[in-house]
């Protein structure tokens, strides 16, 4: 077997897996009940709970205090700025366009990423085919190529395909994320082969197995990848800076950058825009977080 293959068993898989597959389903229910009661089992709080609570609270404070401070600062000096002629937004800045561009790029790129990454991850996790290990190592290796290193040759490729200064040029080149393939593949390794074999015996096509058996089971990992794809694209700065030369293709971070590169940098506005630009991502996260938490228990195995 390959050296990179995870703990997927091959030879003795079938007998070893049967009991586990069935116990997982009931086991998760037991886990919820069992571990939920862990914290308060009649006798009140244990030392561990106190330590845990304290650590979590300190951590949360370290995270939240700067953010609250940022939020407050973004309002604080507004008064000082208002002393000058109140120029909230420079006339050249058309926020709706930038916002729309950001949304289009983020949504399209994320859908594309989820589609092609999950397909590739499934092939890497559950098929034996010639060249698999080589291709997987190559895929992994590309994680380590910093964008800065390939910036100029990459721009030349994109320009020669006519995608420079267009939203396509922002969407397509980064869609095949090695991180996504890796994350989904590791997760798909944990899906029992028996499920796939059973579907095959029932006559399902390879595509159907992928679409109706594997993808629903991989939902927690897909949710994680979706969240990160959105974040990457929404906050992406260096690549749009190179590709989007025309203002009609600017995304939100570029607009913020344009703001902060003005002669007198209106820091509070930069902060306010940053706060605003982060809101949609937070909303999305709160929405998708449930998918992660409910996880495997509510999918597929039913």
């Amino acid at each position: 077997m390959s050296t990179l293959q995870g703990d997927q068993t091959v030879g003795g898989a079938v007998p070893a897996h049967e009991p586990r597959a069935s116990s997982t389903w009931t086991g998760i229910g037991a886990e919820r009940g069992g571990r939920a009661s862990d914290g308060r089992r009649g006798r009140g709080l244990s030392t561990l709970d106190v330590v845990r609570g304290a650590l979590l609270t300190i951590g949360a404070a370290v995270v939240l205090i700067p953010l609250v401070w940022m939020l407050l600062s973004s309002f604080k000096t507004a008064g000082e700025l208002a002393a000058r002629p109140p120029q909230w937004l420079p006339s050249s800045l058309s926020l709706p366009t930038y916002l729309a561009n950001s949304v289009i790029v983020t949504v399209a790129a994320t859908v594309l990423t989820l589609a092609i990454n999950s397909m590739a991850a499934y092939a890497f996790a559950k098929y034996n085919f010639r060249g698999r290990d080589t291709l997987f190592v190559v895929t992994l290796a590309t994680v380590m190529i910093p964008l800065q290193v390939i910036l100029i040759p990459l721009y030349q490729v994109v320009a020669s395909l006519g995608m420079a200064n267009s939203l396509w040029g922002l969407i397509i080149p980064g869609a095949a994320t090695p991180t996504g393939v890796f994350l989904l593949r590791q997760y798909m390794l944990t899906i029992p082969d028996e499920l796939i074999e059973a579907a095959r015996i029932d006559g399902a096509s390879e595509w159907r197995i992928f679409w109706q058996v594997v993808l629903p089971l991989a939902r927690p990992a897909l949710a994680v990848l979706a969240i990160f794809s959105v974040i990457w694209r929404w906050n992406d700065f260096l690549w749009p800076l190179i590709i989007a030369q025309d203002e009609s293709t600017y995304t939100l971070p570029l607009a913020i950058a344009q703001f902060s590169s003005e002669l007198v940098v209106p820091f509070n506005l930069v902060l306010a825009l940053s706060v605003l630009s982060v809101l949609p991502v937070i909303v999305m996260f709160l929405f998708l977080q449930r998918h992660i938490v409910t996880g495997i228990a509510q999918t597929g195995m039913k």
Partner: protein
Amino acid sequence: MTTATTGGGDRAAARAAVGEPTRDSHRPGTGGGAGRPGRTRRVGTGRKLAPYLFIAPNMLIFAVFIIWPAINGFNISFYDSSNGRTFEWVGGGNYARLTQDAEFWQVLGQTVVFTVAFVLLATWGAILLASMLDVQVKARGFFRAVFFVPVLLSPVVVGLLWNWMLDRQIGVVNALLGGIGLPTPGWLVDPHLALGVVVFTGLWTHVGFYTMILLAGLQGIDGSLYEAAKLDGAGSLQLFRRITLPLLRPTTLVVIVLATVNGFQAYDYIYTLTGGGPLGSTTLLVQYIYDNAFRTPIDYGFASAAGVLLFGVVFVVTLVNFVVGRRREAV
């Protein structure tokens, strides 16, 4: 290697032999009971081709937008472009220049120190956070959301934010420290402290990401194992060491690999946090590459050589991670 495949085939054959009549009507996609019979034929062609079709779109984009430019970049590293216009073949000349560049060695050392500290602290921090957030604590959802928020921010903004927080004069941190009578160091102007601050900012930015990945991994651990161990009288710490850590290992490996890559490629938040200063004490490899490639004097061949070296270092470290991870799994 072939066990799974033949196993399925045998079972299908066995079932067919037991009673199902073999018809040749082939109705793909109908599923259920009616459309089954054509399966043996499809196993032959469809299953062989399927993996290639599955990886094709991903690999096409990879090839065009990552691998091909990377090969080009590798190629450029053998050319001298220091005049900014022409490319002249110099063989290993750029690499030889790198090894003689004192700044390069300083930057490389700082990058390694930063990355080692970052990977260790980030991995252990994320494991602890994830295991604390996996069990039922009060306001668990709140904590999970809070620790994730920094990941949502643009790294450029994060760098700016901590730059303000840690400013010697107007920063909130020193105002608080001074208020309770503690020393107020120049976090970002003291070369001995600045790299530590960069590590901290990196952790602040990334640990939520790793925690989330590990939480997804924890969901996959069979809860009955904990129940069984508890019945045998295992304490919380033992549960963590004997069950959580070993079973979480594949996911932990993902986190270590990602953290290693993030460590070696740290750039954007450092740029707004310290700009690589003071006295170059927080200049890491990617900034070194970027400065050589896009700041005057532009020397793209030289920068590409540094980029190739960076790639090589990360590649080797990741392979080592995998080999060690695999060996531990085998034991």
